[in-house]
Each structure stands twice: as structure tokens, then as C-alpha cells.
């Protein structure tokens, strides 16, 4: 009986072990040994000898070896022990004192703690091994199944273990596995590096189809690369993946804003606080001066290029801030509504964040070159959620509501305003008296009757701001059958801005259908649509900054007409200031309808060869309405009067269609050689149609503001463009021994934007990777999960520029009431692609079972042949033509580190930190441009490469701020005399009030413009480093995510401080004016004395070095806390999952910047401009409360 049991036991053990493919030699020995024992037992059992059982024996042993005790017993009893000596290997020494016990009892006692049984057969005592007590016998079943990855591909090599036993198995090449004799109540555990372990209860099931989900941030996760996916561990390029869950549940409405601080090498700056507005995104620095510098977005395979849709309108209102700040004088009149508009509109606004499944940012040439001419600024690949096969329909719904407060300028109140001006008036009067000059009329009047400054106490900012309200509701349904899956969603967002009259609305949704027609043919359709509405300020904020707080907002029930107070022609409100409440009657609205649709066909021609075809369309229809009421002064470039309002309507329709075909050959030749080869072709066509019509003279400002009501029609404008891009591309990935990686990509792009001779651009790249952890010398280092070195180099290009730029164009017009065509653009048939050579070196690592992972990368990006309009000899009939004239280099280091500080069942704490530094430098600008100081030597206002308040010059960084140089306050008579002798303006008598306490500015010391105020570089906007820090805490059902973003070392031109640098006008100032200013009692102050004249800014009409401030900051960008309802509650409520959350954004910032927020950009599209805080829309602090359920 025993031997039968033993036999069974051993066979079972053996068969169990037999399943395990890995067997050591030791194991084999044990089996042979056991077999010997069985033979022995059989032999012993057959002997049938017996021994006396009735005699009594005594024995005493102290720590005596068992063999010695056995010999003693043999000696005392005359019995013979029979055993396999190996049995005694594990015996323990014996300590016992037994007196007068029968043999049976004695043996029982002696062998009590030994792994031995005994049996007395006649005179022989047979020793055998004590059987291991087998587990409680239950029904055992055979289990089989398949394991898939998140993309539905079979996963080989997954370990499947029966929990609590040593039983395990590993899936084969088809992802298939079998387990025999598994307890029907057992639990299976599936594990694979880079994937979340999965436990499943068997519960009597015999067949399992299991999908594993990758863990976040591990080197093995799947990342999207152009036209395919790859494992992160097999990448040779630099790709940052954004943790999508961490951007959900934040108050950020648009995807570009949500990317802030999320990825190394990706700098995100919120342009301003307009609802739904745009952010400036630079992936490893910008590369284009003329075109956009935003990355290329690929949304579910559909390409999307960010652009500024604003249609120039006749009705525009000037910005007093920009008026005072200098800027680009040729266009300052168009700076308010136009630039606010540009920042308020967002190409990506139609995308609902909750629909997003993954975001991968491709940064280096090895990754981006497959997108060739569109990839120099990086590529962001976004996929949206899809249904899963064999999933019963799930409905998920979410809602949140939020509140936002404007972070506004701090302005003088009425009392402070009066105090400041009275002090200024007194200073003015004293100075003029002492100098024997005629009295200043304004000073005399104010001192005689301070009520002339106004008697009201108005908080203009309070009048035009409000608590913004956000509401967002979204619902999605997903599910799938055996061969189809679907996902559909609908979302509605409504956001009222913190400024009156501004809001954003969005309805967006998508339908995604995946169909497996046959085992070889798949067809996917994807349609995303959105309707967005923007209502944008008419410059009310800028004007509110300047309106004196002493003025009543209304007079006789109507907005007070500006200027309400003035002292002669010179001392009044600055140009462009209007009553914000009058401006509020204006309209600036934009409606956008957009559709992203694609049809995707996939056919497996052979086992290893797959054909994919995608047809996609990106359509948008944009409508813009501007109306400037009759009560408001409009600035525009025509010569019309302002009677009766000016209105414009513009319409733009853009259709980008693509057809792309690829063939993918994926072959694993043997365990050492794996090749993936992709070839593809793509045809893209872009059609753009736009028109704008304007009229002026409307019967009223409220109801009859449609174009048909206008008395006079202005010349309408219309344009139509078409461009095409024909591309061929290939990529080969070769992996040798799973250690050495090689990627080669190439793309040729043929674009209608370039002349025939240079139409085709070639964009090759290569990347190599070396997985050190696979090498024998590191293979056994258990704490290294992954360690990879990668390097790449390659070319990419940009073509986000206008159409037809290389043609010599004729523009239609008319003369003598007859059509005329005039040459309007000098063509350049030698125009070339802007080309970027990017080199990249990086290390990716994952240590301690993925508890610490990250990457370090260094890159060098050299863009050459950057297009810019270059001056031409005017005898050509043109002043400029587009040429490849500049080179820009970007070099940088980026580090991303993440890890689980605490990884417990109940509590976890994860940190992700990224830090990047980018050095952007103009390496060449063709000789036709000169350094700013010499340009100014020939003409101080020449702006050939000076755009607004910025300048580009060879050998210097991008982002240089340009302006006058403040030299401090004149404190002594000697300084005054010297300054007067240097300043040409002073000598001409333009600065009669120059005296002690006046400001000094740098002047030219020689040249044609000796004595003129000098403009030069006064700051640099480029930060030394920037990045983000995300902390995620999970405790039981609670989760807390905190995102800090930071930027260090950059500067910003703070335009409102231009106004508060003196009392040159009656406009209100920010509280900087209260900073210590020079006076007899405060001679150490380095701000000029308060004085009622433009002397404080004279000559330096515009920005000066005194207005440039450090824009370093660290801010709590978002904080979000969520609570997942526990299972028992879910059951009670009948829902599958439920979560509630609260979050906040822009909660606080640590910064020395004097303005409300250092993270702003005046022009998010441009590389040259945009480093100005022009305070046209305040940023905001937001709080939301939301819930999310699924059924």
C-alpha cells in the first residue's frame, strides 16, 4: 500500500516537473534516487520476514548519530535494519532515554523526529522515507489558453504560475499555454516584464484568453512610432510617452496645455488665459522663422498641423499696452484683437482629452525622419480610445464643473492714483520753478484742484472680470464582439472666461469601429468631430489697465466717453485707451467645425507581410465675426472714418486629405535575427479657401450689425490655396540577438511649396541601440531590468509655410475701372527646404524591478537654410524676397527619471521628474542682415531682422529681447551735464524737463546717429532649464496627483511696466509705480522721480531694459485628488467603476516676476517673437469638481 502511494506520489511529482521546460541536473539525480528506493521497498515487502514485538528494551542516547543508535538497537534486539543509506542523509542526532519499552514504541519514539518510517517484518526492521503529506486532494483539471498584448498580438514567453505551488508554464510563440492538473479553485498568475502582473481565479474554467496591459513608464511598454508600434525596449530613437491618466481629471481643457511639464525636452508655455486658448509648444527648440514651430500632430493616423486661423479684419482696436511698449511699429495697430484672437484660437481645441488613449512625443531624427519634411519640430502621436474585442458594452460617463479666477495685474486704487499724481505734480512744479521755466499747466491745475483728477472710486478690473465657470460632460460607450469592436463618445464643454464677454464652447465626439472581416482582413473607421465657439475679448482688459480709477464707469447711464479728463493735448490718456465698458459692446466671435475622419484597411498578404491603407481627411470650417461699435475708436489700415461702427466677417475652409499605403514585412528568422521592414507611400493634398468682407456705418450697435446693414462696403478679400505632398518612405528595424538594434529610415517628400528644381527633399536617418542588460556580464545582475544606449542621426525638414511662395506672383487689382494684374511677389526658383540635421545620444534604464527608470538624452539639432524674407535691390521693383538665409542650432540635455518610492498593496508613491535645457542659437544670418547696433547706426528704426521687441543676430541666442538701455537715474549735476552733452534729443531741446531724478538711456557714441538713443539686446527669453515634477500618491481608494512645472533662467519683457515707469500720461499704473522712486528724501532709489511729463520715457518710447524681468518660476500647475468607490459600494449602486475628484490648476507660483504670471507668450506660433507679457488676457486659477462612472 505504502509503496503504491509512494509510487503515485513520485510519478505525480515527476509529471509535474516534466511540464517545466527548464530542468537542472540535481533534479534528474533525485528522480533516479527515488526510483532506486521504490525497487528497494518492493524488494523488502516481498521478503515477508517477521520479528518479535513483545520484548521490552531500554535505550539511552545523548546527541548520538542515528546510525549509532540503530546499531545499538540491532545489538540489543538482534533485529536487522534494512535501509538505503541515502535515507539517513537527513537524519538528526538523537537524544533520548527510553526505559522498558516494547520494540514498536521504542522505534516510534526514536524516529519521531526523523524523516523515516519503520516496518517490522520478522527480524527485519525496514526503514523508509516518511511520505510528504499530500495536499488535501481536490479535483484537478487541465487548463489551456492564449496570452495577448494590449494590441491584440500573441505574447510569447509569459510566465503562468499556479499561485501557492511551484507549478508554472511559459507561453509559446503563439502565446499559447497549457497547465495540467490544476486545482479547479486555484489562482493563476501571469507575469511578463513591463506588463502588469495579472491574477485570475480558475473557478473551474479550462480555457483562458488573457490580455496583459503594459505597466507605465517601463522600458518594455509599447510606443507608437510613425506608421507602426514598437516596444520601448527596441527603440533606437528618443520618444517620450505621456502618462495619460495623469492629465485626466485636471481642469485643462485642451491637450496642448495638458502637456506642460510632462515630457523632457518639451517646453510648454500657456499663451494667456483665454478660454480654450493656445499654448506654445517647442520640442527641443524651434527651427523655423517664417513657419510655425509647433510639432506635427498625428491623431489616429491623421496629420494635423497647428496654424493661426485668424482672418485679418478691418475692425480692430489698438492695444494701449503694445502702443506704449514699442513693438513692431508697422503693425502695432493690429496688435490687440488680432493677437488676442490668435492666442484664443486653438487648432487642437476640438480634441476631448478624455478620448485620448496614448500620447507619444517623437523627438529625435531616428523617430521623426519617417515624417520627413514635417518633422523638424518633433511629432506628437495621439491615439484615441478604441473598443476591445469580446468585451461587453461599457458605458462611461463623466461630469465636472469648475470655477476660475483671473490672476490680474495689481493696479492703483483711486486714493493711490491721486497720491501718485499729486506727488508728480508737486515735483513738476518745484522743478520748473527752480529752473525758471514756465509752469506745467497740468501740474498747476491738479495741485490747485485735486478733484480734477476725478472723484469716483472705480475698480475697473472688478467691473470687467468675473468668476469663470467651466462645465464638462462626456459620455462614451465601448464594447466588442468576436470580430468587431466599437468606441463612441460625445462631450460638451462650456467655459466662461474670467473676462466679461469671453467664452468657449465645444461639442466633440468620435465614433470608432474596428472590424475583422476575415482573419486576414481588418477594416477600421474612425471619425472625430467637433464644434467650437470662441468669444474673445475686444481689448477690454488692456484698456481697463489704463482707465483712471477716479473715473466713473457710466455717465448718464452710458459708458463714460474717453478721455474724460485731460490737460491739453499732451497730458491725457495714452493712445488707444477706451472705456472697457464701451468696448464690451464689440463682438469678436469665432466658430469652428472640424472633422477628422479615417478609413483604415489592413490585409495580411502572407504570414509576415501586411498591407495597410489609410484614407483620411482633416476638414475645418472657420467663421469669424468682428464688430467694433460706433462708440469705439477702431484702428485699421484704411482711411475710413469711424462713424457708425465697423464690422467684418471672415470664413475659412480647410481640407487636408491623405492617402497612405504601407507594406510591413515582419520576420523573425531565428532566435537571433529579427527584421521589420516597412515601405510606404503617401499623397497629401491641402485645400484652403478664405474670404473676408467688411463694412462700416451701421444703424445701431446692437441688432443691425450684420454685414448687410453697413452703409459702406470695404474691399473684400479672398484667397484660395492648394498644396500637395507626395512621399515615399521606408524603415528597417533589425534586431540581432535581441541585443543590438539598428533602425534605418528614409523619406522623400515632393512638395508643391517648392520650385521644381528643389521640389524633392530627402530625409534619411539611422539609429543604433545596444541593450547592455542582455550581455552576459550584466545578465546576472538582478537589479538591472533594462539598460540601453542608443544613438541616432538624421535629417528632417519643415514646410509649415505658405503656399506659392517661390512663384513670381501677380495680384489682381483694378485701375481706371478695369482689371489690372500687378507683379506682387518676387519669386525665388532656387528656394530650398529648410533642413535639420539632428544627432542624438541617449541612455534608457530601468532598475530594481522597474522601481527606478528613466532616460538621459543629449541632442544637437542644426537647422540650415531657414527661410526668411531677405532684402533685395529695390531696382528689381521689390524690396524683399523669400530666401534660405539663416541657420539655427539647438543643443540640449534632457533627463527624465521616474520611480516608485513606495510600492505597497495599499499605498504607493510615484515620482516622475523631468528636466531639460535647450540652447538655441542663430548660427548664421546671411550677410544682408547686420548686427543690431550697426543697423541702428544707419537707421535706428530699421527693422530688417528686428521684429517687435526681439532681434536675431548671428552667433547669439534665439529669443533676444531688444530695446533701449536704461542707465539709471541722474543723481548729480555732473551726470546731468554729461548726459545732456551726449543726448542728441537733449541738445535739440526735446527734453526740456531733463533734471536730477530723470532717467538716463544709452546713446550712440559715434556714427551717423551719434547721440540718438541706442537700442540693443536687453534680455534673453531662453530659460537655462525647465521641466516638470509629477507626484502620484495612491492610498487604498484615494489617488493624489500633483504636477509642478518650473522654468529657470529666462527673461520676459513685461510691457505694463513700461507704463508704470513714469507719469507720462494720465493712465492708471500698476503698483510698481509705488516702488521707491528718486526724490530729495530718497536719493538712493533707482527709479526716476515722479514727474508729470514724458521725460521719464522720452527718447525711449518703448521697451527698455528696466522692463525686462526674470521669468523663472516654479508653480503648482495642477493638483488632482480622486476617490474610487470601493466594490461594496459599487455593487450597491449597480455601477462597474465610479470615481469622484477635485482638482485645481495654476494654484500657486514661486517667482520674482513682478507681473501676475511669468508663464505667458505674446505670440505662441513664432520663434522670433512672443517673449513679451503684453497683458491682454489674464491667466487664471481654476478649481474643478467632477465624477466619473462606468456601467
Amino acid at each position, binding site marked *: 500500500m505504502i509503496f503504491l502511494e509512494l509510487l503515485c506520489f513520485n510519478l505525480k511529482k515527476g509529471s509535474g516537473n516534466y511540464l517545466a521546460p527548464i530542468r537542472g541536473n540535481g533534479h534528474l539525480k533525485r528522480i533516479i534516487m527515488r526510483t532506486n528506493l521504490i525497487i528497494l521497498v518492493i524488494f523488502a515487502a516481498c521478503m515477508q520476514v517477521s520479528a518479535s514485538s513483545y520484548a521490552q528494551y531500554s535505550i539511552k542516547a545523548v546527541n548520538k548519530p542515528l546510525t549509532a543508535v540503530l546499531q545499538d538497537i540491532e545489538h540489543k534486539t538482534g533485529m536487522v535494519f534494512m535501509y538505503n543509506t541515502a535515507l539517513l542523509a537527513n537524519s538528526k542526532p538523537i537524544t533520548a532515554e527510553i526505559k522498558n519499552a516494547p520494540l514498536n514504541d521504542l522505534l516510534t519514539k526514536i524516529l519521531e523526529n526523523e524523516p523515516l518510517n519503520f516496518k517490522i517484518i520478522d527480524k527485519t526492521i525496514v526503514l523508509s522515507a516518511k511520505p510528504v503529506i499530500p495536499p488535501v486532494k481536490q479535483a484537478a483539471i487541465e487548463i489551456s489558453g492564449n496570452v495577448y498584448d494590449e494590441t491584440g498580438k500573441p505574447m510569447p514567453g509569459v510566465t503562468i504560475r499556479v499561485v501557492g505551488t511551484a507549478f508554472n508554464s511559459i507561453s509559446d510563440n503563439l502565446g499559447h499555454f497549457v497547465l495540467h492538473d490544476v486545482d479547479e479553485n486555484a489562482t493563476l498568475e501571469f507575469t511578463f516584464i513591463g506588463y502588469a502582473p495579472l491574477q485570475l481565479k480558475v473557478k473551474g474554467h479550462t480555457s483562458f484568453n488573457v490580455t496583459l496591459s503594459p505597466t507605465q513608464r517601463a522600458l518594455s511598454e509599447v510606443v507608437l512610432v510613425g506608421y507602426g508600434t514598437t516596444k520601448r525596449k527596441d527603440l533606437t530613437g528618443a520618444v517620450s510617452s505621456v502618462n495619460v491618466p495623469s492629465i485626466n481629471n485636471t481642469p485643462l481643457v485642451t491637450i496642448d496645455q495638458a502637456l506642460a511639464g510632462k515630457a523632457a525636452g518639451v517646453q510648454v508655455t500657456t499663451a494667456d488665459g483665454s478660454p480654450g486658448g493656445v499654448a506654445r509648444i517647442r520640442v527641443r527648440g524651434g527651427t523655423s522663422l517664417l513657419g510655425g514651430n509647433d510639432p506635427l500632430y498625428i491623431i489616429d493616423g491623421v496629420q494635423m498641423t497647428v496654424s493661426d486661423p485668424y482672418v485679418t479684419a478691418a475692425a480692430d482696436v489698438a492695444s494701449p499696452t503694445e502702443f506704449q511698449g514699442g513693438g513692431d511699429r508697422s503693425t502695432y495697430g493690429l496688435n490687440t484683437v488680432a493677437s488676442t484672437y490668435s492666442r484664443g484660437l486653438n487648432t487642437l481645441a476640438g480634441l476631448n482629452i478624455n478620448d485620448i488613449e496614448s500620447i507619444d512625443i517623437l523627438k529625435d531624427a531616428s523617430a521623426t525622419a519617417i515624417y520627413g519634411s514635417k518633422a523638424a519640430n518633433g511629432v506628437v502621436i495621439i491615439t484615441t480610445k478604441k473598443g476591445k474585442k469580446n468585451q461587453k458594452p461599457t458605458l462611461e460617463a463623466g461630469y465636472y464643473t469648475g470655477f476660475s479666477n483671473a490672476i490680474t495685474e495689481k493696479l492703483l486704487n483711486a486714493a493711490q492714483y491721486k497720491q501718485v499724481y499729486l506727488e508728480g505734480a508737486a515735483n513738476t512744479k518745484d522743478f520748473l520753478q527752480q529752473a525758471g521755466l514756465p509752469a506745467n499747466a497740468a501740474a498747476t491745475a491738479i495741485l490747485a484742484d485735486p478733484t480734477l483728477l476725478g472723484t469716483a472710486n472705480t475698480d475697473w478690473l472688478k467691473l470687467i472680470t468675473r468668476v469663470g465657470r467651466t462645465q464638462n460632460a462626456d459620455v462614451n460607450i465601448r464594447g466588442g464582439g468576436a470580430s468587431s469592436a466599437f468606441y463612441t463618445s460625445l462631450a460638451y464643454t462650456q467655459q466662461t472666461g474670467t473676462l466679461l464677454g469671453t467664452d468657449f464652447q465645444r461639442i466633440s465626439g468620435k465614433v470608432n469601429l474596428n472590424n475583422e472581416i476575415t482573419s486576414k482582413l481588418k477594416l477600421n473607421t474612425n471619425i472625430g468631430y467637433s464644434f467650437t465657439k470662441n468669444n474673445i475679448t475686444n481689448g477690454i482688459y488692456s484698456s481697463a489697465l489704463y482707465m483712471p480709477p477716479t473715473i466713473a464707469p457710466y455717465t448718464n447711464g452710458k459708458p463714460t466717453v474717453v478721455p474724460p479728463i485731460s490737460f491739453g493735448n499732451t497730458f491725457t490718456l495714452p493712445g488707444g485707451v477706451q472705456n472697457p465698458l464701451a468696448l464690451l459692446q464689440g463682438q469678436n466671435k469665432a466658430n469652428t467645425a472640424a472633422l477628422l475622419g479615417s478609413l483604415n484597411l489592413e490585409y495580411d498578404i502572407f504570414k509576415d507581410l501586411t498591407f495597410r491603407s489609410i484614407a483620411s481627411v482633416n476638414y475645418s470650417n472657420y467663421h469669424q465675426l468682428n464688430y467694433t461699435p460706433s462708440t469705439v475708436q477702431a484702428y485699421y489700415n484704411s482711411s475710413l472714418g469711424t462713424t457708425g461702427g465697423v464690422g467684418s466677417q471672415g470664413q475659412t475652409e480647410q481640407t487636408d486629405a491623405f492617402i497612405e499605403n504601407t507594406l510591413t514585412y515582419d520576420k523573425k528568422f531565428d532566435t537571433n535575427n529579427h527584421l521589420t521592414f516597412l515601405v510606404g507611400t503617401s499623397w497629401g493634398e491641402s485645400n484652403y479657401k478664405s474670404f473676408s468682407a467688411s463694412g462700416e456705418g451701421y444703424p445701431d450697435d446692437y441688432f443691425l450689425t450684420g454685414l448687410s446693414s453697413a452703409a459702406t462696403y470695404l474691399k473684400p478679400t479672398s484667397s484660395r490655396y*492648394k498644396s500637395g505632398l507626395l512621399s515615399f518612405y521606408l524603415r528597417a528595424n533589425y534586431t540581432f540577438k535581441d541585443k543590438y538594434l539598428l533602425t534605418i529610415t528614409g523619406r522623400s517628400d515632393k512638395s508643391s511649396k517648392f520650385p521644381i528644381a528643389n521640389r524633392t527633399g530627402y530625409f534619411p536617418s539611422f539609429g543604433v541601440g545596444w541593450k547592455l542588460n542582455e550581455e552576459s556580464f550584466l545578465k546576472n545582475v538582478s537589479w538591472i531590468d533594462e539598460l540601453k544606449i542608443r544613438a541616432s542621426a538624421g535629417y528632417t525638414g519643415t514646410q509649415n509655410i505658405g503656399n506659392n511662395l517661390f512663384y513670381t*506672383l501677380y495680384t489682381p487689382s483694378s485701375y481706371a475701372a*478695369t*482689371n489690372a494684374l500687378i507683379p506682387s511677389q518676387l*519669386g525665388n526658383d532656387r528656394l530650398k527646404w529648410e533642413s535639420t540635421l539632428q544627432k542624438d545620444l541617449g541612455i534608457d534604464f530601468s532598475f530594481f524591478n522597474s522601481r527606478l527608470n528613466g532616460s538621459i538624452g543629449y541632442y544637437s539639432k542644426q537647422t540650415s537654410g531657414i527661410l526668411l524674407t531677405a*532684402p533685395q535691390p529695390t531696382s*528689381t521693383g521689390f524690396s524683399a524676397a523669400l530666401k534660405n538665409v539663416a541657420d539655427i542650432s539647438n543643443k540640449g540635455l534632457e533627463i527624465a527619471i521616474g520611480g516608485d518610492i513606495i510600492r505597497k498593496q495599499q499605498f504607493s508613491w510615484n515620482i516622475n521628474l523631468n528636466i531639460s535645457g535647450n540652447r538655441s542659437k542663430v548660427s548664421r544670418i546671411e550677410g544682408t542682415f547686420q548686427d543690431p547696433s550697426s543697423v541702428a547706426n544707419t537707421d535706428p528704426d530699421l527693422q530688417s531682422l528686428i521684429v517687435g521687441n526681439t532681434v536675431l543676430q548671428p552667433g547669439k541666442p534665439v529669443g533676444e529681447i531688444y530695446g533701449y538701455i536704461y542707465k539709471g537715474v541722474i543723481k548729480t549735476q555732473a551726470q546731468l551735464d554729461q548726459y545732456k552733452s551726449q543726448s542728441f534729443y537733449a541738445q535739440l531741446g526735446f527734453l526740456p524737463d531733463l533734471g536730477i531724478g530723470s532717467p538716463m538711456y544709452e546713446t550712440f557714441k559715434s556714427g551717423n546717429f551719434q547721440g540718438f538713443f541706442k537700442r540693443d539686446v536687453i534680455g534673453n527669453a531662453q530659460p537655462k532649464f525647465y521641466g516638470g515634477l509629477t507626484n502620484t500618491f495612491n492610498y487604498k481608494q484615494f489617488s493624489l496627483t500633483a504636477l509642478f512645472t518650473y522654468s529657470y533662467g529666462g527673461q520676459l519683457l513685461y510691457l505694463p511696466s513700461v507704463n508704470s515707469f513714469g507719469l507720462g500720461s494720465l493712465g492708471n499704473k500698476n503698483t510698481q509705480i509705488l516702488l521707491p522712486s528718486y526724490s530729495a528724501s530718497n536719493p538712493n532709489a533707482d527709479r526716476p522721480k515722479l514727474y508729470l511729463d514724458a521725460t521719464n520715457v522720452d527718447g525711449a518710447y518703448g521697451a527698455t531694459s528696466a522692463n525686462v524681468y526674470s521669468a523663472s518660476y516654479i508653480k503648482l500647475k495642477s493638483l488632482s485628488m480622486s476617490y474610487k468607490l470601493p466594490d461594496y459600494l459599487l455593487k450597491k449602486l449597480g455601477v462597474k467603476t465610479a470615481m469622484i475628484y477635485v482638482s485645481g490648476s495654476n494654484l500657486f507660483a514661486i517667482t520674482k516676476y513682478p507681473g501676475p504670471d511669468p508663464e505667458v507668450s505674446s505670440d505662441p506660433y513664432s520663434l522670433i517673437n512672443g517673449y513679451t507679457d503684453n497683458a491682454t488676457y489674464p491667466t487664471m486659477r481654476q478649481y474643478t469638481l467632477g465624477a466619473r462612472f462606468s456601467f
Partner: protein
Amino acid sequence: MAKKKLYLLLLSVVSVSILSSCNKQLNEPPADASTNLTAVSDERSAQIVLNGVYYRFANVNSNNVTDWTYHELSGGMLTGMLGYGAGAAVDEDNNNVGSSYVPPLWTDAYQMINAANGLISGVNKLPATAFTGSRKNQMLAEAQFLRAYADFKILMFFSEWNDLNSKNGVVLRTQLATIDNGQQARSTVAESYNAILSDLDFAIKNGPTTNPNYYMNRWAAMVLKMRVLMCRAQTGDYAQVRSLADSVMQNSPYTLEPNLKDIFYTKGLSSNEVILGTKPQAGQENSYYILSRAYYPGASAIFCCKQAFKDLLANDPRRSWMVGDTLQFNPTPNTNYFTKFIPNGTSPTQVSETCYAMRLTEVYLLKAEAILRSGGNIADAKTLIKTVMSKAGVTDFSAVNNANDTNSLLLQNYYEVLRNLTGEDGLEWMTLMRFPLSTIRQLRSTITSKVQLYFPVPLSELNYNKLFGSQNTGYSL
């Protein structure tokens, strides 16, 4: 397997055909823009492009108004007749380096030249049979006339026009500008004259005989040729001027306007005296930034006449309407509204916005000057001058009658040019410059050097046209 191969083959065929059609589409010219390759395709489109050259001639600006400010003001300011109302312009002191009213002529002229070259190369690509009758040559003649007009402006203002041996002439452009041909050397003065005259000879031979007077005809080409020859002043040139004048006076349909004032105040281009002018755009008179509004009431700019002009008209009936009230706002001393084109106290009209490039009066006075300069009959010259004066309502001819030598009569001729043609197309400045420097100095004390008779070439040309050559003698910019 065979089926799969068939699919692959089919796929390849479809792909290749799609790709070739894509390629074709890439090479298509822009759909909604006209390029140098497509602008001129037939007679009608050629006419439209030609009208574009006239658009440049009339200098229609971004406000969609014809802007002849620099044509009208440059001559008047340089001769001391006209000025800026709110602080004198440096041009009034013959400070050519700081001039603001002459440099824009450079750009305007070259825009016109480029437009003309575009038309010429476009038309030349089409066969004569593509045009009705002799329209091909007529169009070429019109374009060449306009090119000659612009080249002559460059010659007279930015070249050493009065020295036929000078190498500092005009950059003679004959091709539509490209990025490559932008680099081109200036021609000599002699070559410049020849090129202009050659264009004009073609225009005289082939130009239309009749045309609305905001377009050119053969008579206009003859008048321009007279101007050119008068300035070149080589052997036989004066005789040619006289014979051209005779031809225009005897054979052309033009007659002197019986009452000079009617041209500017009521008739405009409908006057039978106007050989060539600019036609204001529709509604232009309502615009704010227009020239006649800058004369009266003085809007975005204020141009006025100066004491010298007032004095010159002291006993002339023209004073009553050409010289208006004293300037009201921030006046430059001794200035009055210049009301030649717009009556005092009125609003701009289409007529006030009309500009005059050529009037028959000029032909009379050029002929008189040619007679005098070539030693002709003084009495003939006097008759010509007096005829012109009589149309202005002058009855007292004593000054002309009393001038009995060539030089004093040349002066009388100049004075009549000033009285009659000031503020039109720089004719007064050209007439002044044809005097010897000593006379010029007497007439304009601010001119002390021959160098002041031409202007420096704009830096925008010198900096970016590396082949240009040297700056005009006497200027170091």
C-alpha cells in the same frame, strides 16, 4: 498564391497611376494666383497686365488711391515753390541726403519698370496672330513708353544725367525680375539715354494713335522724347525737339485749354489739353489719405506754397486761385494753401484727385526753350510763351516782351514753367536744372554744387545689388 500575385500586380498598377497623377498635380501652377508664367496668355490677359503697368504709373497705393505725392511735390520743393506746412522739409533746402520726397520715386519707377518688363516678355512669347490687328506692337509700344518714362525719372533724379561721359547712369532692367537677375550693374549715362530713346522711338512708331488720356499714345511718346532730348542737349537734339513739338502742335488732336483754371477745377482729364494723366480710383475722393486733402484743408499731411511762389504770381491772375489762405494750423512761416488743384474751402473731388503728367502747354514751352537754346528766332519763342500765358488769363506780357536776349527769355520761359506747371510732374525742376550752375545758384541760393542736381542712389540698392557699381559722384552714403 497566383491570386495573391495578381492582387499585388493590380495594386502596383493602381499605385503607379495614382502617383503619376499626383506628380502632375504637384507641378500645376497655383489655382488662385497668377504667376509670371500664366499672367499673359492671350490678348485679353495681356491687356489686364498692361493695365497693371498703368496702375504702377498712377501709383495706386495700399489705400487704393492714386498717389502722385512724389511726382507733384519733388519738383515744387526743389525749386522752392512748394513746401511742407508743419515745419519745412529738408527737400526745400536742396538737402539731397536727407530728402524724403525724392527717394520714393526710385521704388515707384522700378515697380513700373518691372511691371512693363513682365508685359513685354509675356507678349513677346505670343505670336502676332494672337492679337487683333497691330495690337501686339501697340501693347509693346505702351509698355516701352512706360518703361522709358520710369527710366527717365531714375536718370533725372538718381544719375549724373548732365554728364554724358559719366558711367553713373541707370540700372537698365529689361527682364522681369528674378532672384538672380537682381544683381545688375548700372549703365553709363549715354547708354541710359540711348535705351530710353530707343524705347520711345518704338513707342512713337507703334503706339496707338488714340487712347483715353490716362493711357499713352504716340503723341505722349513724342512729348516724353522732347523732355529726354532737351536734357541730353546734344547736337541735333534741340532741332528734334522743335520738330517733335511741331508735329504734336499741328497734327495731334490736343488744343490748349482756353482757361487754365478749368483744367484743374472742372475738367480734369476731359480737358482737351491733357495728353496724359492719372485717373483717380472710384470713390478715392472720400478717402482720408489723399493728396488733394493734404493741400486743403491739410489732413494727414499738409503741403503748401511758399513765399517765392506767391511772389512769382504777384501780378498774375493765377494767384487768386492757385494761392489760398494762410495756413491755419502750426504754420511754417510765409506759407499759404496751394490751391492749384483744389479750391479753397472745398472738399476733394475726382477732378481734384486727378494728376497731370503731360499737357500741351509743356510742348509750347519746351519748343520755346529749344528755339532759344539752339539760337532760333526769339520772336517765335516769345509767341509760344505768351500764347500759353494768355490761356492763364494773363494780359500783361511786358516781362516777356522786354526780354530781348536768349538768357533773359530763357528765364521768362522758366518763370512760366513755374507758374503754369509747378506741382505736376517735376517739370519745373528739370527746367531749372538745364541752366548753367551759375544761373541756378542765382535762382536757388540753396544750390551751391552740381552734385545737388542729382540724388544719392538709395542704400537699399547699394547694399543689396553687389554689381551696382559706384555711388553717384559727391555722395559718400
